[in-house]
């Protein structure tokens, strides 16, 4: 039982609203779909490639709208590109999204209309490459905060996001493509469902004492919904996805719901983790008590001889040096 100040939170809850976890989903879907589209094209599966480009285009088209709508000052969204700052995953991500969206738009237009063939030759691999960090930088973004349940999962969250991106990309593309041409998308969806389950378990396991927000409240509820949707969706996709288009659509929808809920689970757990001082103070105090860290407070003075004229506020009037 750790002490707190009248039960007040130590950290501020994130200001982010529903657009952000939704963007985690759409950004990841767009990123992984671009890779799926490009590689399918390389293998000569044009039917699948076109559908995957469409998924990527649709997902990346709505992404900036979510991000801008979440800003406190939406009219200033262009300030995001005011600088390139490697210490800010949000700044890096803004550039990744810009590059990714431009390349994907060109590739998708070319896939469906045949226009801009020369530019699309460059845009396709560029979109596929940009898509990879587009799927994982968002994990770096939330890991690079003071929110314990995010920060302490910094080694595993990117893998949850990467597998979730592959999951929704495979699922959405499998749902939109005639089953005969959708085998790679089904393989991707089912494989990613497995990978996401493992990555999630690993994250929860390695969080240890920090992971409690995933066991209670909204973080836990979304986690359960995600697992149920993903397991059922993967089973349907595996058994019936190749034979029946309606089954592929149902499975794709379930898997996308699972991937979206997984992001919501992480998003909600962050709020709980920031809001309750016990999640902040408890582990910090425990680290100091175990001697793993020194902590930020010190009882021993660095001076041996006490000089009252130096230390007492009554005799140490404020002096403005330089004035």
């Amino acid at each position, binding site marked *: 039982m750790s002490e707190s*100040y009248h039960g*007040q939170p130590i950290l501020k809850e994130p200001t982010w609203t529903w657009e952000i976890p939704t963007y985690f989903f759409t950004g990841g879907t767009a990123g992984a779909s671009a890779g799926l589209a490009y590689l399918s094209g390389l293998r000569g599966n044009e039917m699948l490639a076109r559908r995957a480009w469409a998924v990527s285009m649709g997902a990346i088209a709505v992404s900036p709208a979510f991000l801008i709508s979440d800003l406190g000052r939406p009219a200033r969204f262009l300030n995001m590109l005011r600088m390139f700052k490697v210490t800010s995953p949000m*700044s890096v991500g803004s550039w990744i999204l810009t590059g990714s969206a431009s390349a994907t738009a060109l590739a998708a237009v070319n896939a469906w209309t045949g226009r801009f063939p020369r530019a699309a030759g460059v845009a396709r691999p560029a979109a596929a490459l940009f898509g990879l960090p587009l799927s994982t930088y968002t994990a770096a973004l939330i*890991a690079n905060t003071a*929110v314990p349940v995010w920060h302490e999962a910094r080694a595993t969250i990117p*893998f949850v996001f990467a597998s979730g991106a592959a999951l929704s990309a495979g699922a959405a593309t499998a749902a939109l493509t005639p089953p005969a041409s959708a*085998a790679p998308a089904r393989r991707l969806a089912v494989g*990613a469902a497995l990978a996401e389950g493992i990555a999630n378990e690993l994250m929860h396991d390695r969080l240890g004492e920090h992971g409690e927000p995933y066991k209670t409240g909204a973080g836990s509820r979304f986690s359960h919904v995600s697992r149920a949707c993903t397991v059922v969706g993967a089973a349907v996709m595996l058994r019936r996805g190749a034979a029946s288009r309606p089954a592929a659509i149902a499975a794709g929808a379930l898997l996308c719901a699972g991937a979206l809920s997984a992001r919501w689970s992480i998003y909600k757990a962050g709020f709980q983790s920031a809001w309750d001082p016990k999640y902040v*103070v408890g582990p910090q105090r425990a680290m100091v008590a175990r001697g793993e860290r020194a902590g930020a407070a010190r009882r021993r003075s660095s001076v041996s001889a006490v000089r009252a004229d130096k230390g007492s506020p009554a005799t140490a009037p404020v002096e*403005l040096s330089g004035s």
Partner: protein
Amino acid sequence: MSLETIAWPASYGEDAKPRKGFFTDTSVCIGCKACQVACKEWNHVPMSMYGFTGKSYDNTTQLGADNWRHVAFIEQKLPVDADAGASLVQAAERGAALDAGLATYQEGDGFRWLMASDVCKHCTDAACLDVCPTGALFRTEFGTVVVQEDVCNGCGYCVSACPFGVIDRREDDGRVWKCTLCYDRLKDDKEPACAQACPTNSIQFGDLAELRERAEHRLAQLQRAGLEDAQLYLADEGDGVGGAGAFFLLLDDPEVYGLPPDPVDTRRDLGSIWAAAGAAAVALGAGLAAAVFGGAR
């Protein structure tokens, strides 16, 4: 003692001023809240919650977009029986003091007030500044951390990055706000409004190097007077934020005042964070290739 930050003083060259800061000596705070009032008046900070919280005399409760100074009120009662955390020697001393009609705390009935004026720490390693994607947050020539309100687009990243929960978004305004260490007054060689208003010199403003030295003496003085739990908070480069521009002398553990005992600037882990994100991106690429090429077309 190194007080240097990444941007200060190097990026200012000859324009760099001595690093300014606050030493808040909570042992002489009387909870008058003059600092809060002076801050609001000078900086035109909007009205915040209006009403009673029931949390001692604290109706402000925390720092935020509309509270750049916050006075905490802690009412502590020493248990009459030997308390669980005390050593046998301490328990015996307390027992003897009670038997003699004396109490350990100054009020004489085993009760004491702790009061402390909290503020933005103006960290040496400032997470808010590092994560700001627009460059709205910057390091001034005084080594302090300030938001440029004409640049901030309200993305909220700094809010989640601050390990102290200081900076926050103002709802009707959309941008983030926090203590500027009265940047405008500093430019005119004036001390910040809160420090000027403080009647007991609990809030001391000045050159950080000198404040640190002063604080060491004050700590030694209090320790010698028997206040064993007196401690300096955020006065060392070795802590998780590289020391702070605003540091504190506390009479109990930081968490008692609503301060994190071991705050860490998230940038320290940024290398491993980017490495993990990069590895996951590569794994995603491998997974995509395996799905497309690892079976029937």
